[in-house]
């Protein structure tokens, strides 16, 4: 099925388009492009958060919601589950994906580590948006040490 690739191509083009006019925009421009990608991801996440949990409403607590993100959301968007989920039980969660599909075609190892954040901004927004529909305000950041593995750190903000 060509579904997986379609989204990957679309995503690659989105990033390329935002960076095309000014290949090296400097800190201000870069931040703007990153936040554009994040807001796109946020809106998509909001819609998915409404649409995906069709019958399963068993979200009693945060941990259930995070498990939903790691399993159902990741499977729906990337056709694989998140590799590991760690928490400090105080609102901070680290989601680790050892072969993130959007980074796999790029490199394997330390090459292009500086370029990786732009390809992860959309996904950060996606996680943030889904959490917001399900009722949690959060802050999502990423860190990449070696492609294609990446970590998403989710901090749930207490109201």
């Amino acid at each position, binding site marked *: 099925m060509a579904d997986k690739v379609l989204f990957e191509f679309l995503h690659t083009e989105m990033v390329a388009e935002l960076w095309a006019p000014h290949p090296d925009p400097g800190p201000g421009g870069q931040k703007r492009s990153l936040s554009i990608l994040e807001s796109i991801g946020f*809106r998509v996440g*909001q*819609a998915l*958060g*409404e*649409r*995906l*949990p*069709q*019958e*399963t*409403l*068993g*979200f*009693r607590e945060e941990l259930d919601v995070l498990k939903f993100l790691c399993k159902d959301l990741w499977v729906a968007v990337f056709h694989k589950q998140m590799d590991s989920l760690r928490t400090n039980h105080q609102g901070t969660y680290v989601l680790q994906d050892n072969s993130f599909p959007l980074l796999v075609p790029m490199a394997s190892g330390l090459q292009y580590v500086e370029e990786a954040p732009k390809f992860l901004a959309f996904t950060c927004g996606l996680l943030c948006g889904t959490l917001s*529909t*399900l*009722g949690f305000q959060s802050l999502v950041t990423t860190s990449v040490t070696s492609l294609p593995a990446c970590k998403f750190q989710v901090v749930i903000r207490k109201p």
Partner: protein
Amino acid sequence: MSGSFYFVIVGQQDNLVFEMEFLPAGKAESKNGYRHLNQFIAHAALDLVDENMLENCSNNMYLKTVDKFNEWFVSAFVTAGHMRFLMLHDIRREDEIKNFFTDVYDLYIKFAMNPFYEPNSPIRSNAFERKVQCLGKKHLLS
């Protein structure tokens, strides 16, 4: 025998997103003095809906009848995004209301996919209103 129904969608901050009345043919619009009462009853039922959600660890979205006020019953349906669909009705019609909720839920999801719609904001769309009216006629007033 057919009764009157008042349907409302409430957002995450207890804000009104959509409301619609279904009255059987022949009954004129409810007297102006009592229309605000419907909103009041629905709002008061929200607490019970939340309580129901917290204690009832079921996976069901449909919560059946949650509250009763004078002659009005309140049934509720909660979506994953914590949007609440409330129905005020004066006769018991559980199956029809459940089917109505399911259909409106499908409709709502499709509507929420629209990138121009801000989640939690009031729904102002003629197409949506017409469809909900059709669903209401089909399930509730037949």
